């Protein structure tokens, strides 16, 4: 049964920019505590400023919070036919063009790079291009692949 797999025609789709995400100092502290990131620059503004940053710095995987919110436009679209109970996260990649810091206002454009069916499984790869809301400068690229099992 391949009709339970995601619709391949979504490949190549690009979504409109999201509303700006405001990066908060307390959110970064909360996320750093959750992943166990101990570097003081995640929580202490003075430590962050000592490294040349305007405010506390996001852990390396924090951008997933922003990316997952953007990915929901696609993943939760019934027309995309993604059954989340059949989804396994296959891979993830963060490329940081510059670090994310508290006070950033960030806009995300979601791309569906590929939807490939093979042997009853669909591999769905999305890419989030995260940019600064004020000048459009690139901040982070987040690439994620989900494996979706068909009904067997």
């Amino acid at each position, binding site marked *: 049964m391949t009709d339970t797999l995601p619709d391949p025609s979504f490949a190549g789709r690009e979504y409109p920019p999201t509303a700006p995400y405001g990066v908060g100092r307390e959110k970064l502290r909360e996320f750093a505590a959750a992943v166990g990131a101990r*570097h003081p*620059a995640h929580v202490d503004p003075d430590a962050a400023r000592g490294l040349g940053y305007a405010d506390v710095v996001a852990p*390396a995987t924090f951008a997933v919070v922003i990316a997952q919110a953007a990915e929901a436009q696609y993943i939760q679209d019934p027309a995309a036919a993604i059954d989340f109970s059949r989804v396994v996260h296959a891979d993830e990649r963060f490329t*940081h063009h510059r670090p994310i810091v508290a006070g950033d206002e960030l806009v995300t454009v979601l791309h569906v790079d590929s939807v490939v069916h093979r042997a009853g499984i669909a591999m769905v790869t999305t890419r989030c291009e995260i940019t600064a809301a004020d000048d459009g400068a690139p901040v982070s690229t987040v690439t994620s692949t989900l494996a979706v099992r068909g009904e067997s």
Partner: protein
Amino acid sequence: MGGPVFEDLSVGDVVVTETLRFDRERLVRYAGASGDFNRIHWDEAFATGVGLPNVIVHGMLTMGAAIGPVEEWAGDPGAVIDYQTRFTRPVPVPADDVVEVAVSGAVAVLDAEARTARVDLTVTAAGAKVLGKAQAVVRL
């Protein structure tokens, strides 16, 4: 905070070792902090109902926790300019248990022109790899 000196590094140097510990409380904390409320990470009946051995650690939590020691080693969290992994095996977390995940990171590639080091992470639970191709590029 002084970071490592590029010229002092050699391919093969083990630069981080750490034991991560995951219990149910930590999974719930990550769910709240990240916004990923997939029930396979906190609802045992749901997780076993979809064929998992138990509630499992968010792959993104394992990935996020494994990079912390690299950020500390680098001396600057913003020095991690690229980080990727595959999720190769779920990490089940039984109720009232603490599951240990071992992290070891070694220098795999040194790029003298870009002044970057690629640190490859070996991340295992009960002796089996749970992350694959876990690679962080650190600017020094």
